[in-house]
């Protein structure tokens, strides 16, 4: 006991005098047997329980992938325009050759007998059958010159691509020679013998009539066996100055001519489908969603439009989130007069109708900074207000809590209090609302581009809204042109809303443990 006599020597206690109090003692605290679960992990579990949100998340993923992959993988770009294959139905050559209406470029048409004969003639000449399926045959008895005559009418699915058949084109000599060379290389017949309109009763407006006809309506004059009689022109004096040396069609003994002389050019009959292949490096047309009114591949266009919408919406949300968070943080943290003034400013800005903002930005800024940037500004000008209000509310909730006081006591600066201590607590709510902002942005962006208030044509891209307004014009004849973008945008917004709702419920602690 003498060791402790000198109490004033406590500062220099030798190390060996210490001994562990609990080294052999039993600790009665239970070890946590389960893994601890954080706020986000908890939210994730609740989110996964919500089946519809999970499905929505998957759909969003697919749509995003679609937007990324199609513009890259597609053989087409927006510059691939064709002025014949416009508003064409979905078309994959394989299906059309199988005679399938599904993806066969099918268009339902009402045909008279003459039209049906013409379609059969197209098949005979080009070797591709435009007639997919006759759905209905109607017989009408009409009285012609005092006699009862039966007339047949058909409702049929016709492949719009094959039905184009042969078209009359006027081209330069060089082009004519180039096509001939291409024909020799590939063995694909593009040029067909020309027909003089004098030989077919003066019909000039249907290049697909290559056979002898009875009347000006184009009723074929058949031979004894019921076959069409070719009416190809054989008068060498009408032929253009460039000689035709390439492949000739079957049944041509060398007498048919393949071009008509026009001043400084030649007029030819080209099989448009093969001409398209000639123009596009030998590739057959392949339009899974069909084409739009500019002759662009609709699938590529939707992919590019979707990519624009998504990038734009994410960008707008990110900017608005940042501005709104700062603004709301300052409002909520300082309160009082600062809050009041800032709130008034936000109030005034939020009362400007969005359509007016967008228009004014368009009129003022579009020429200076570009349409897309000015469009972005329009969204940012008022878009952050909702986010600011949300952040402000969260700040009011947290700023008087003990942990904030504790940090303040320890000397944390305002900035540190705001963004290190309070802000992370409100992050869940803010991020969640961001998921609900994105569909809103996409929706208004589509609305405005649809109306043409914002004209993005100089951007050399397209948007879903533009595609839909293009489709609107040809809605009755080619509903698919508006249908595909409509489906895409609806699906995108519905999924985003469902996803956002699921996220909101998952992050909202008040629904914890509540299963409905």
């Amino acid at each position, binding site marked *: 006991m003498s060791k402790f006599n000198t109490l004033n020597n406590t500062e220099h206690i030798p190390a060996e005098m210490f001994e562990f109090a609990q080294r052999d003692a039993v600790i009665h605290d239970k070890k946590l047997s389960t893994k601890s679960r954080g706020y986000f992990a908890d939210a994730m579990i609740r989110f996964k329980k919500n089946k519809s949100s999970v499905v929505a998340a998957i759909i969003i993923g697919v749509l995003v992938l679609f937007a990324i992959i199609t513009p890259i993988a597609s053989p087409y770009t927006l510059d691939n325009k064709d002025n014949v294959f416009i508003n064409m139905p979905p078309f994959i050559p394989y299906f059309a050759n199988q005679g399938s209406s599904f993806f066969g470029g099918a268009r339902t048409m009402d045909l008279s007998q003459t039209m049906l004969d013409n379609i059969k003639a197209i098949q005979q000449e080009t070797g591709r059958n435009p007639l997919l399926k006759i759905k209905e045959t109607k017989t009408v008895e009409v009285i012609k010159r005092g006699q009862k005559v039966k007339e047949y009418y058909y409702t049929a699915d016709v492949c719009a691509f094959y039905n184009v058949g042969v078209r009359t084109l006027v081209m330069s000599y060089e082009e004519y020679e180039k096509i001939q060379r291409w024909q020799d290389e590939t063995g694909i017949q593009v040029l067909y013998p020309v027909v003089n309109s004098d030989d077919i009763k003066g019909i000039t407006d249907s290049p697909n009539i290559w056979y002898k006809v009875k009347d000006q309506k184009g009723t074929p004059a058949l031979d004894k066996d019921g076959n069409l009689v070719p009416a190809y022109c054989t008068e060498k004096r009408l032929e253009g100055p460039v000689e035709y040396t390439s492949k000739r069609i079957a049944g041509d003994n060398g007498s048919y001519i393949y071009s008509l002389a026009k001043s400084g050019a030649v007029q030819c009959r080209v099989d448009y489908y093969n001409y398209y292949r000639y123009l596009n490096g030998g590739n057959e047309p392949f339009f899974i969603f069909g084409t739009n009114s500019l002759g662009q591949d609709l699938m590529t266009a939707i992919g590019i439009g979707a990519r624009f919408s998504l990038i734009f919406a994410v960008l707008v949300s990110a900017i608005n989130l940042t501005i709104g968070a700062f603004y709301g943080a300052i409002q909520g943290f300082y309160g009082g007069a600062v809050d009041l003034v800032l709130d008034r400013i936000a*109030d005034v800005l939020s*009362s400007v109708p969005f359509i*007016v903002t967008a228009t004014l930005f368009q009129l003022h800024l579009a020429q200076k900074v570009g349409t897309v940037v000015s469009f972005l500004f329009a969204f940012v000008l008022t878009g952050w207000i909702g986010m600011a209000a949300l952040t402000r509310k969260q700040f009011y909730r947290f700023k008087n809590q003990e942990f904030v006081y504790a940090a303040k006591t320890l000397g944390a600066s305002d900035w540190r209090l705001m963004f290190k201590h309070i802000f992370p607590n409100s992050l869940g709510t803010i991020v969640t609302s961001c998921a609900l902002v994105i569909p809103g942005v996409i929706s208004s962006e589509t*609305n405005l581009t649809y*109306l043409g208030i914002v004209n993005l044509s100089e951007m050399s891209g397209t948007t879903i809204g533009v595609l*839909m307004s293009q489709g609107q014009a040809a809605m009755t004849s080619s509903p698919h042109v*508006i249908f595909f973008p*409509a489906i895409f*945008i609806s699906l995108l917004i519905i999924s985003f809303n*469902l996803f956002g709702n699921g996220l909101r419920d998952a992050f909202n602690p008040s629904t914890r443990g509540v299963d409905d």
Partner: protein
Amino acid sequence: MSHLKYIAQRVALMLLTLFIISLMCFILIRMLPPVPLPAGDPHTAVIEAKREALGYNKPYLVQFGIFLKGVLTRFDWGVSDKLYPGQEVAAIFFEKLPATMIVNLFSIILSIPIGISLGIFAALKKNTWIDHVISTVTMVAISVPSFVYAFLVQYFLAFKLGWFPFLFGSTIDGTPLGSISYFDPQFLWSMLPPILALSFGVIAGFTRTTRAELTEVLTSEFMLLARTKGLTKTQATVRHAMKNCMVVVLPSIFGEFIGILSGSLIIENIFSVPGVGELYLNSINGRDYPMFIMLTVFYTVIGLAAGIVVDISYGFIDPRIRVGSKK
């Protein structure tokens, strides 16, 4: 009294906001180069005289002063530059307003009963398959943009089935009906497609609000009390739950009613309704700035008024939430 004071405050604030926005938009629009007028056109002289009177070469604030004075004293919004050269902007505006109002009014009249009853039905059958179907459809209906509805209505009902005319104010075979007469049955029939296209979203909105509010009310304690004291489920729902639910639903109806004035640009564009929305689009595309200024102010007023009506009506419907009565 304090409620009146609150209303006065709100209205004053609204007027101030309106003033600031009008000033900003006015200056921004006047800053754009004025449209060149065709030389030799008889209207050019009229428009130029008007521009002179409106002080087009004076500072912007002076211009705004002249503009404001004209509007407040004579309701003079200037003359149209381009669309209807030389005509009074206000006169054209009021000519276009009825079409928008009527289409939207019908849409609301159609939507309110359907929306609210669907909402009530869903809330009463909470967590049954009926509720799930209604909620999902509502969710989808709210998300789908209005021009998709317009397309669906136009394509399926008007084109495929041939029930309705394709455009506003025409017969089913597409001949225009000529003058606008809102009581002609044929004309009413031609208004149905835009009304339907507008209604889907509104119905879904009402359904969602009603369902959300009613489910909350139905689980509150006073409902239990009502049942305890012997009311049947129907009695308790009608007398207690519905009343409380309406506290939220009614203001949204009022807001919607104010909103009908502004209409829908897209629907009017697609169905070529000769309304305010169409006028707005034309005024932008045709660079008719006097028209544009008036419509900007108009849309701002509608937005502000809808907000204020909603806020104030809360106080009238439910004395418990009178903002001014806190003190």
